[in-house]
């Protein structure tokens, strides 16, 4: 174990640490040899990461200690096994992600009322901003956009991860995913590009549960699972500035299929400038409450394997 493994690092430097080469091998196994050999290999990959990533392991433990009483009504029992299951869920999600973007058939289900809401949102032609999180598989949702011609999705992604994914996808799959806008910070140019997409009836997807990559990025402490944690302000500034319908989009793995949830969150079309500050604050709290609910129902599918709360040693 190298000393750097223990050094404080930003999530972008520790997350998605699977090497591109390794992922390509896994994709090849999945596509050529089928799901069973693939699962067999994945067990070893996950075990390897479990043993080699003490920082991620500790982050997982801390999170599970916080969420488990909400989920099960009692503190976690057999924490080590739970952490391992948490890692397993993450490994599975990475592979689902690749499968989704390489156009493999996926069993995606939307309950009737969620489907109706999505249909209405698409048909309104007003587009919107979809707040997502690192809970579940948001790439599955983006892959859905390929299934209908009138559903255009633009996904904001941190440059560091986007580059890696693009490399992976270009080489191992024939198809490209949804439109990816790579950002390390949100500039006027980015905002204008997104406004254009929304004006054309498209949907912009942005995760709001990660600290911004740039040191200048603003965060605000929001109570999350019993203690303040820094949430990025950027997505909520964008939501206020873009003046459009805001939704939350979730996607969890339930056994062999993926369950997508789509709900209205707010509408900033008529939000006045002087009310923005207040709106942003309450919106961030409501987002954290939404995320809490997601985690409460599916605790093992929140994939943040890095110190999230202020009190966590970094």
């Amino acid at each position, binding site marked *: 174990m190298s000393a750097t493994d223990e050094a404080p690092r930003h999530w972008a430097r520790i997350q998605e640490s699977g090497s591109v080469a390794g992922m390509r091998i896994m994709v090849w196994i999945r596509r050529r040899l089928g799901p069973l050999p693939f699962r067999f290999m994945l067990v070893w990959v996950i075990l390897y990461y479990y043993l080699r990533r003490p920082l991620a392991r500790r982050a997982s433990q801390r999170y599970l200690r916080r969420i488990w009483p909400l989920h099960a009504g009692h503190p976690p029992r057999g924490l080590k096994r739970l952490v391992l299951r948490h890692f397993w869920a993450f490994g599975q999600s990475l592979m689902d992600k690749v499968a989704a973007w390489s156009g493999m058939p996926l069993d995606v289900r939307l309950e009737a009322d969620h489907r109706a809401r999505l249909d209405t949102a698409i048909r309104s032609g007003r587009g919107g901003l979809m707040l997502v999180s690192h809970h579940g598989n948001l790439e599955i949702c983006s892959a859905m956009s390929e299934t209908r011609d009138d559903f255009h999705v633009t996904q904001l992604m941190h440059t560091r991860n986007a580059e890696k994914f693009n490399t992976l996808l270009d080489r191992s799959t024939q198809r490209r995913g949804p439109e990816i806008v790579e950002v390390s*910070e*949100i*500039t*006027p*140019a*980015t*905002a*204008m*590009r997104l*406004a*254009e997409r929304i004006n054309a009836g498209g949907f912009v997807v942005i995760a709001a549960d990660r600290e911004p990559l740039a040191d*200048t990025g603003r965060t605000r402490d929001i109570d999350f699972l019993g203690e303040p944690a820094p949430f990025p302000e950027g997505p909520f*500034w*964008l939501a206020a*500035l*873009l003046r459009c319908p805001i939704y939350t989009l979730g996607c969890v793995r339930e056994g062999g299929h993926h369950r997508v949830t789509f709900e209205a969150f707010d509408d900033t079309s008529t939000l006045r*400038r*002087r009310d923005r500050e207040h709106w942003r604050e309450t919106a961030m709290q409501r987002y954290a409450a939404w995320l809490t609910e997601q985690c409460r129902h599916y605790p093992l599918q929140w994939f943040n394997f890095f110190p999230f709360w202020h009190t966590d040693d970094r």
Partner: protein
Amino acid sequence: MTTELERELKQLIIDTLELEDVTPEDIDPDEPLFVEGLGLDSIDALELGLALQKTYGIQLQADSDDTRRHFANLRTLATLVEERRVK
């Protein structure tokens, strides 16, 4: 010398950012718009960008140095609009 477009842009900045205590005369075309000068911040820059897009159909390159250059002061902003306006 202040051009018609510069006057228009001054009003756009005041209206967009609801700068109630600022009159068009207060904005020096050569003074920095952001941080110094008017003291606008990065969120204001986002908003101003969106207003320029809406009013003039301006497009910007994603490069943030490029944006910084165009948003330096009122005169550079006017040049940007002159060069790239589509409406």
